[in-house]
């Protein structure tokens, strides 16, 4: 009887007894100081983004012509930009934009890549062949160039920027997941599940997907960083998020270069914010990789 063999039993065949979450977390903190720093940075960013309305002292989009390009002071912690907007407030709200762009592009991109990658490995045949060729084509384009083309077609704005970054991420994820999934496919329990008459969807989702989760999560963390950087580059070329939306990359465009000498705070702080955020996410990703899969260490 098929029903007597539970999914858990099948999946559990590779599992082992795990320590409690709190203990695992503690071990992680102790063993991986850099990872902890990373988590701290990511947390700060999350809090800033989530509570931006509470934290930011000013409206990030409000022009104040009586306070243009003011140096950092108690009134404006990080100074003001060319339109008199408070840079600290724009940075705090910018964290929200970065999270929205970074996380949605990374999540959607890798989720689609995950499904396609696993499906491709599972079904094989012409679907896999075709999928591989499509991957080859898309991978041959540097990320920024594909993103540039997508924005050229669809125009700028938060949604289109997310779209432009998501599309090039799909094949990057698809390829890695497919490779891992191929390896999993060779393991007998997948055949066993098929033999037991489970549906394709069920086998893929319940048995193959969980087993490619480790490389997937690692990639996801790398993608968030890449997405934030890509957004910054697009904005620098004038093709990203648009004024007056507070976004870090956008804050480096136009004004930043013009005023880099006379009002350096306009250029320095957003750049630092991007650097710190991506640094934090990468450190966290490294630590995650070490913890999840020692064999993949620091690849």
């Amino acid at each position, binding site marked *: 009887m098929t029903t007597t063999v539970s999914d858990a039993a099948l999946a559990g065949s590779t599992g082992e007894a795990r320590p409690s979450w709190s203990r695992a977390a503690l071990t992680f903190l102790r063993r991986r100081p*850099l990872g902890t720093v990373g988590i701290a940075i990511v947390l700060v960013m999350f809090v800033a983004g989530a509570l931006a309305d509470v934290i930011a002292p000013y409206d990030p989009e409000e022009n104040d012509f009586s306070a243009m390009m003011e140096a950092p002071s108690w009134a404006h912690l990080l100074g003001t930009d060319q339109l008199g907007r408070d840079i600290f407030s724009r940075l705090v709200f910018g964290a929200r934009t970065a999270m929205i762009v970074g996380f949605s592009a990374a999540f959607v991109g890798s989720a689609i890549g995950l499904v396609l990658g696993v499906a491709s490995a599972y079904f094989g045949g012409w679907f896999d062949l075709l999928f591989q*060729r499509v991957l080859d084509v898309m991978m041959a384009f540097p990320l920024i*160039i594909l993103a540039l083309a997508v924005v*050229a*077609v669809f125009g700028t704005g938060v949604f289109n920027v997310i779209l432009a970054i998501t599309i090039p991420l799909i094949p990057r994820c698809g390829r890695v997941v497919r490779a891992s999934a191929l390896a999993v496919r060779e393991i007998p329990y997948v055949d066993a599940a098929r033999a037991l008459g489970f549906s394709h969807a069920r086998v893929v989702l319940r048995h193959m997907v969980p087993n490619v989760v480790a490389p997937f999560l690692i990639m996801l963390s790398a993608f968030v960083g890449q997405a934030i950087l890509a957004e910054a580059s697009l904005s620098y070329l004038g093709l990203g998020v648009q004024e007056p939306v507070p976004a870090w990359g956008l804050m480096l465009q136009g004004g930043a270069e013009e005023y880099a000498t006379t009002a350096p705070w306009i250029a320095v702080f957003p750049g630092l914010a991007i650097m710190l955020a991506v640094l934090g996410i990468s450190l966290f990703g490294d630590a995650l990789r070490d913890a999840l899969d020692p064999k993949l260490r620091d690849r």
Partner: protein
Amino acid sequence: MHRYVVKRLLLAVPTLLGAAALVFVLLRLVPGDVCVIRLGSGGAHVDPAAVAACRETLGLDDPWPVQFLDFLWNYISLDFGNSMWSGNPVAHEIAVRLPVSLQIAILATIIAILFAIPLGTISALRENTWLDHAVRVIAIAGIATPSFWLGIMSLVLVLDITYLATGKAWMPPIDYVPLWQDPVRNLSMVLLPALTVGYRYSAVTMRLTRSAMLEVMREDYIRTARSKGLLEQIIVNRHALKNALLPVVTLIGIEFAFLIGGLVVTEQVFNLNGIGRLLVLAVQNQDNTLTQALVMLIVATFVFTNLVVDLLYAWLDPRIRFS
């Protein structure tokens, strides 16, 4: 081996074809055209009759399939067409810009290798010490820093520091002279951009060197060598590094191909007349023939580098070519 080479070469064909189709369609989905931009760029006046005549001359009114077949056929016969913007042969437009980009790419690669391999190795050998942590943070910071920001900041710093020191701001030359004509002028122009690009490049390489070294150092033959009582230095230099470098070389190869694309932003910052800036310009002007040629050049470089790397691997590891 021959069969493997043929198979790999054949596989490159659909990739190039697919890339050609993708870039072709994307470019034609963009609203507007080169004629409107050109005739309206003064901001004053766009004469509809002139636009129509211009479209006619450039063949923009032909149906897509006709244009696409033309495009493919011309490429097969190695005719890359004329730029829709300047009317010059595309090959000429690119050839003029290639030296700067290539020079920066090569210089950045040299910088990457010089820093990455020693630092990555040391980091691996001193795993989990403060030195290791420091190297890793520097490396991750290199990946985390937007390279255009680094470029802007370093250029401004050079100007500000020279101003403070001498009372007269100094910056690198802004018109390119080939290396063999005036090496000092040439190098002072390309060094800063090469460093900016090279930092990220070397950061990526450094991380890979470290992990490859870590993996190799755990291999059995290293343990054997140790048990034989060989000096650590010899183990590292003779055995470990040599094996660890294979994936590193691969990465350097692939990154080099991508570097050309990555120059898009850096060349903007430093106003370098290279192919990255040309690409942005071609996209802006909706110069389809030029954009197609540049994208195909980048894609072909990537495909070709991959091919060479794969063949190299197959040659080194017989298991691959027979599987």
